[in-house]
């Protein structure tokens, strides 16, 4: 889910950037450093929407760098346990399938896929119901529920399920005619 939050960060600036455009350089550095990163607490920082406040700079002893505390607003994307998401399937194998929702990867294990869906291998591996009416393959859109999350250094990885009511395929690209 997307959130709009205010975060704070200490930015270090090299003296060569000091001058009339100090603030602009600080903001540019903030955007370079922060946009696209991921943390366990806040999720992916998708975009910075504004800078609220830049505090007074503190010169660090021993080096000429100056540290500025910067408060900024940003849009973050963070998946939560219990959240319902619509994701696009990227890969299907006999262990389950991988899907993507925004910057987040989700894995749905075959144990969390309804029992009436079987894995079919082939050129386009997929999960299909016994009567062939519902198919999950690459590029299918599925609605799933997140049941667990893990955060690495640079990305968030989730486990999902489609075994509950109102979950499963929304849009099957193969069926579009």
């Amino acid at each position, binding site marked *: 889910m997307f959130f709009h939050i205010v975060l704070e960060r200490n930015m270090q600036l090299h003296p060569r950037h000091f001058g009339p455009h100090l603030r602009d350089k600080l903001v540019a550095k903030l955007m370079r450093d922060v946009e696209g990163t991921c943390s366990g607490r806040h999720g992916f920082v998708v975009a910075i929407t504004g800078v609220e406040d830049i505090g007074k700079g503190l010169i660090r002893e021993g080096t000429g760098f100056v540290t500025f505390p910067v408060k900024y607003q940003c849009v973050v*994307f963070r998946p939560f346990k219990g959240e319902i998401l619509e994701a696009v399937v990227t890969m299907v194998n006999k262990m389950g399938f991988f899907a993507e929702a925004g910057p987040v990867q989700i894995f749905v294990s075959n144990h969390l896929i309804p029992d009436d869906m079987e894995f079919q291998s082939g050129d386009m591996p997929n999960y299909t119901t016994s009567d062939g009416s519902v198919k999950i393959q690459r590029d299918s859109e599925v609605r799933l529920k997140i049941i667990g999350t893990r955060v690495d250094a640079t990305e968030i990885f989730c486990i999902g399920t489609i075994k509950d009511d109102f979950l499963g395929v929304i849009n099957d690209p193969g069926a579009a005619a």
Partner: protein
Amino acid sequence: MSEKGGKGYSAPKAPKSALKTSQVSSKGKDDSSAKSKRGRKVQFDNEGTPEVNSRNFSDFGGKFETLSSKGDFGKAGKGGKTMGEGKSAMLKDRSKLELRIENELPKNAKCLMDCEAADILQGIQEQMVLLSEDPTIKIPAPFDRGLQYAKRGNHYSDPQSLRRVLDNLTKYGASDGEICMIANICPETVDEVFALVPSLKKKESKLKEPLKNALSELAKLKDST
């Protein structure tokens, strides 16, 4: 030691692993003293400052949340962002799969519906087009993917009316996170909402009618595709 019964509520959290960040402390001092008698292992929630809890929790980076969340985010994300809602320790029984946003993000976090996020990100992208002429500036991949995701999930033409319709539900106890979930799911029936957002089930009696009305309003607002 029978502090458990003596404090006027039943079944406080048993002294489980130190990894758990129990948030029972909405009851205040009573909880802390009960726990201290039991030989607490780690001082996570002495005085019940939820921010301390959530910060400590986020340190357990590599673990799946399922491991350490058994009933410990006792608030279970109910009742809006005010952490001091006083939800009791009975919440151990609550499903693990309920949305518990409020405990894990800073208090000033504002939940965005996909359509609102799409608007904001679209605006930023238009500015970025100008910035991208500078070769040193790269548009980060999460931004692109986030924007695509928000646009794809965007079934409504007017985020403001959508927000107005759903904010009505806060009067009946729905939290911000739950409202955003409802908007993102695009439900067709009330049963679908209660099945997908189990935390609303507790307030089913209060919410059923307003939810029905809200859904019919949403149906009118949906883009005809």
